[in-house]
């Protein structure tokens, strides 16, 4: 419940904080999009835009896909040193802000490729 006050007082801060965190976080895992879809479905359920049944179906589907990605990620990781970032492709849809390193990526559906 304290969160209520937090949310109301600094809801705006969080908006922006999230943007910063997302922009800085370069270790975006591949299931991020799916997790966000799951969160959006939970939000719609709380808004009573979808029924419990619709939510249960969506949730089951998304969780199955997240599990698949987990399975794939569990494949042996490349030894350190052999991994390098070959390129980052990004489109930026938000408002402008300062980015020191000159790297930016889209918070939504970033096309983020990691290559051996």
């Amino acid at each position, binding site marked *: *419940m304290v969160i209520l006050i937090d949310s109301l007082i*600094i809801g705006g801060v969080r908006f922006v904080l999230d943007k910063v965190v997302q922009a800085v976080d370069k270790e975006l895992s591949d299931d991020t999009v799916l997790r966000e879809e799951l*969160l*959006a479905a939970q939000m719609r359920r*709380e*808004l009573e835009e979808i029924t419990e049944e619709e939510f249960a179906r969506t949730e089951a589907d998304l969780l199955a896909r997240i599990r698949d990605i987990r399975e794939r990620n569990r494949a042996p990781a490349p030894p350190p040193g052999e991994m390098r970032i070959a390129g980052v492709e990004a489109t930026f849809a938000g408002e402008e802000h300062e980015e020191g390193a000159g790297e930016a990526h889209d*918070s939504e559906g970033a096309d983020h490729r990691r290559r051996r």
Partner: protein
Amino acid sequence: MALAESGRRVLVVSTDPAHSLGDALGRALGPRPRPVPVRRGTLQAVELDADAALARWLDQRRDGLATIALRGTYLDREDVDRFLSLSLPGTDELIGLLELARLARASPLDDVVVDTAPTGHTLRLLQMPETLRQIASVLDDMQAKHRFLSRSLGGQYRADSADALITEIEQESSGILALLRDAERTTFSWVMLPEALSLEESRDGLAGLRRSGVAVGEIVVNRVTPPPPGPCALCEGRRRSEAAVLAETARALRPIPVRVVAARDDEPEGVGTLRTFARALLGPRGRLPPLPAPGSTRKGTPTAATRRSRGPTAEPWWLSDLMPPSRRLLVFGGKGGVGKTTAAATAALARAADARGGRVLLLSADPAHSLGDALSVRLGDDERAVPGASPRLRARELDADRALAAARARYRGAVDQLFDALRGGSNLDPAFDRAVMQDLIALAPPGIDELFALAAVTDALTQETSAGAPSTVVLDTAPTGHALRLLALPDAAREWVQALLSVLLKYRQVVGLGQLAEELVDLSKQLRSLEALLRDPARTAFVAVTRPADLPRRETARLLDQLDAMGIPVAGLLVNAITPPGCARCRRAAAREEKHVRALARRFLTGAGRPMILAPMIAPEPRGVRALRDWGRTWRRFDPARRP
């Protein structure tokens, strides 16, 4: 009434959300001034309706506020309108002051007499000019960016209606503050009962008034027991304990003059009976009436009413009615001064004494706490064991200001960090946005007492207990109006959460969802389960506490109606301070009380198997674990076939 009849134009206003002014004047009142017939001068009376007043205030300023919000935030008109249309819990105090100022301006008046809400929320009311100033400051921060941009683009900046609105709110704040602090124009009469708990509350309340810079002209000690017509253990016991309280009042609250008003046979109701009451209230203050010395020989002797009916270990009969094992939350509420706190403490002690039960948290959510005084222990915001009671019992007096200060401290750092991060290495500082956020955090949201009380209840009920037994919360609330506000809060809060969720979904492509969305989803779920808990008769129950007198009975009837409308289950009605057999005056009092008890029974005992409990008046009032436990054993079930 008396001021008007001295030839003046008087407006009397009730700012307590649970109004009793109409009952006292013997006529129906509303949010618009209505004339009350008097012999001389003019008298108008108003019972404020904070929700309607807020809606009107916002309506007149909607465009200005929306303009500022559009300029100062990233929201569009649709979002801004949605937020402006939400109900704001806890605006009674804020809007109360604005309405007072408006009403006083609207018609030519000589005096405005204000009937305030009980202590805790009146102190909140007096903090509102500061809140208004802070609101103006946030709006001004939002507008600052627009002014800067206009100047950069078009040269000179010309103030517009949005600036006028900010100035209006600022001036309203400083105008009200100046009025409140001007002892020539404003005086506060502090009204209390000759009871130890009331004195303790008065000490805190008067200290709060001093901090607000409000001058207190007089302390009125109401309902002081006159000498009995013949020998009477109860009257003499009451007079002894009242004498001790009066002596301490005069000593502790010096140099404020103290006026003593004797208890009347019945409560004043209607202009006619008020006239006789006015003589006692406004006549020469005179000397304190002769009272028996506080230290006389029979001090502390229990009166007839404290006789034990059962052995000391037996479970009181009412425990299974009020707190069956399934019950998680028991809320005590009622008019100020009826004995809510004492009753809540008594019930919590009985519940905790049951070894089969789990942990019991006795929580006071009234910003003017009396719980520690009732238990005779020093309590604070950290829950603690109560010496002499079962170790399963913990007690806490909620400190909403402390909780808010802690939340602020957490976020002040976060805001600085955020803006430093945004700034990166560059010299450009988003100074305007930083100022908006800093001032928003400094702003105390209205209704913080209710907000943090619900947070504390939720925390206590979701905590794991080591023994595995679920915990029970016994909640001592602020008087009626604010107890109802507390119970209505989860619904209002969920509207806000839903509005925020919608906005997040709408701007999802821009800012993503992130942690805020997760927290809001969690919060929404918590609020839903709290709503369900509050309406589940197995887990939650309200106990209405009242006295067998006219004004409390009428307020109780309205309280019960509102609880029904909200779907909050009521487990019992406790009628406190029933006069036991005594002198001729006590017998007359008992006969009047019986009428009120029977009227309450007609309203309350309608089929459902919930008890109406009669608790005797005892002198001195029960304080401390042992006295409360003994008092709880004297509670009787009202039986319509018997005299109460």
